């Protein structure tokens, strides 16, 4: 390989030999990853409700992302699954077994904390070995087994040789990997990660993301992680759980979530979106008195909100053709390969965004005519946070 091209990232995650994985993962886990299901979970903190009736089934070996804005209840749900909190009502099952009343000690989960929570007075080695050392005498492995397991894990997280270091002597990414090794060391039934990459810089975050996917594919743990970063969730997870206000808005694959958002919130929260308050009348969609080229045959009459992606439009040369919409350009900025225009349209001067080619002939305060080619109608006036990045 060309030496110049061989850029060694902090995390050179060349495939860990499969023997490592075989050693790490007991036959139990490989053959039988744990399913997790929660049913009608409610959690109140004092008078505020953090979770409002959440039900979710997680298949064995699945990698699930809990995605939502802060305060949406995603971390609460994770902590309830872990047993770090107890639900006000509802049920949590691990496989066939009701885990609702079990403490975090008995649930045998691996929990990775947002700020790592490494034991600061212990070396990397002692941190990873902790879960094995605190076992009751009958099930506690002997020192040689512990040493073997720790060194295997150090290889898996690609930090061999750092066992004598203290957490303060490690970088953020290294600490996070030690935290993961410590959680895996106890051979958990489920792996739970709370904003695992939240405190890391963007580059390390991307590397760790791919690496976590690799580890997951190798070890096969049922894994749930919390994130507020949609890119992370969509890229990493088998299925994404979008949460808002203590409720699940939608569960699905990245494609489901992005292409077929179930609720206005999901459309708004995932990816860029524009929204227009419209009126549906006999299968036609009106913005004020203008008919839009949107099919609404299945929609009930009345007020509705039209959601579309800024890039799901095509410019129209005249603005006279039926269904076209004309807006006044209020701002324009360059985003990657396109120019994003902030338009004003309609009597109430609704603001929204569209993407146009860089070479499109548009002027600030000039008029732009376009057609929405792909959109989604939701009945009622939905709240929409105009994306302003």
């Amino acid at each position, binding site marked *: 390989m060309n030496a110049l091209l061989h850029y060694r990232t902090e995390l050179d995650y060349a495939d860990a030999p499969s023997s490592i994985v075989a050693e790490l993962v007991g036959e139990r886990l490989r053959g039988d990853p744990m399913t997790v299901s929660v049913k009608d979970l409610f959690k109140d903190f004092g008078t505020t409700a953090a979770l409002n009736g959440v039900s979710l089934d997680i298949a064995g070996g699945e990698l699930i992302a809990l995605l939502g804005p802060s305060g949406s209840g995603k971390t609460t749900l994770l902590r309830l699954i*872990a*047993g*770090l909190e107890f639900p006000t009502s509802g049920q949590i099952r691990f496989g066939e077994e009701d885990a609702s009343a079990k*403490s*975090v*000690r008995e649930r*045998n*989960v*691996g*929990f990775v*904390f947002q*700020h790592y*929570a*490494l*034991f*600061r*007075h212990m070396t990397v080695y002692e941190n990873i070995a*902790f*879960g094995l050392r*605190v*076992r009751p005498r009958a099930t506690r492995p002997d020192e040689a087994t512990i040493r073997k397991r720790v060194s295997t894990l150090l290889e898996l997280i690609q930090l061999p040789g750092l066992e004598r270091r*203290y957490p*303060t002597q490690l970088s953020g990414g290294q600490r996070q990997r030690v935290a993961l090794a*410590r*959680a895996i*060391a*106890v051979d958990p039934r489920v792996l739970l990660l709370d904003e695992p990459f939240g405190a890391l810089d963007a580059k390390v975050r991307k590397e760790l993301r791919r690496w976590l996917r690799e580890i997951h594919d190798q070890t096969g743990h049922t894994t749930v992680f919390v994130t507020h970063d949609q890119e992370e969730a969509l890229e990493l997870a088998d299925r994404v759980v979008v949460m808002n206000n203590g409720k699940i808005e939608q569960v699905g694959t990245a494609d489901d979530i992005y292409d077929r958002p179930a609720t206005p919130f999901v459309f708004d929260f995932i990816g860029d979106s524009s929204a227009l308050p419209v009126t549906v009348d006999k299968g036609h969609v009106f913005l004020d008195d203008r008919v839009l080229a949107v099919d609404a045959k299945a929609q009930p009459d009345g007020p509705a909100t039209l959601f579309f992606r800024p890039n799901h439009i095509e410019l129209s040369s005249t603005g006279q053709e039926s269904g076209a919409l004309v807006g006044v350009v209020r701002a324009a900025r360059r985003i990657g390969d396109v120019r994003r225009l902030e338009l004003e349209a309609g009597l109430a001067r609704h603001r929204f965004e569209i993407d146009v080619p860089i070479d499109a002939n548009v002027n600030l305060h000039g008029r732009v005519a376009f057609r929405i080619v792909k959109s989604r109608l939701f009945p009622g006036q939905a709240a929409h946070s105009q994306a302003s990045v």
Partner: protein
Amino acid sequence: MSDVSLTAPSLRAAATSRAEPTTEARPVRGLLIAITLIFLGVFLLFPLVVVFTEALGRGVFAYFSALADPDAVASIQLTLLVAAIAVPANLVFGVAAAWAVAKYEFRGKAFLITLIDLPFSVSPVISGLIYVVLFGAQGYLGPTLQSYGIQIIFAVPGIVLATIFVTFPFVARELIPLMQEQGTQEEEAAISLGASGWQTFWCVTLPNVKWGLMYGVLLCNARAMGEFGAVSVVSGKIRGETTTMPLHVEILYNDYQGTAAFAVASLLALLALVTLVVKTFLEWRFGDELSAARR
């Protein structure tokens, strides 16, 4: 050498022309330092020197014979005994209180913290009187206990109680902010890894606060051995029985036995010096750990 003498004035000129914006002028700084030093010398260092010169004024033999006096030995023993009971008691209490305050949310927490500080704000004499009122011959519980042959006031138990009361806040006060800052995440991690509450305490919580704990114990010990006011009220000052070292010093001094008084006092002063040295060492160590924990 000549280079240095040539460049030094120019450097200094550069420094004064661009004085640090956040620092006082040179004369003000000098004045502040001088005031501090004079104050320390007159009020702290000079008395300390006097204690030792007075103690050794009549020679080393007089000094040691004063210390070998049976009453003096008894007072030293009593002081050590009281400290040996009061310090561990407050160690246990301090850790428990700090744990409760730092790791749990409960009603009346602010009140509990204020209560822990009470011995700091109450005069030691009052602290002693409380126990006289409770356990004295005319007190609430005194007659009952007396009928069972239990003597608290004018006896060792009273001295221990008063000392515990006065040294109550030291350990807790030291640990509460430290534990609050460290939060509960490491404990949660330990429990999620299968550790019991006891294992979590011994393997995670305690090692994280060990320097702060030692610091608190040290201050607690110094105060326990040096306490005068509260102990003096409950002790009854029976020589050789209920006099701790500070009380013994006072008795000797009132008896015009200056050398003997200063000899015992010199031991207390020595204790203070040792405490100071260990405290400085711990601050150095402990400060390091704290900054490491924050990093």
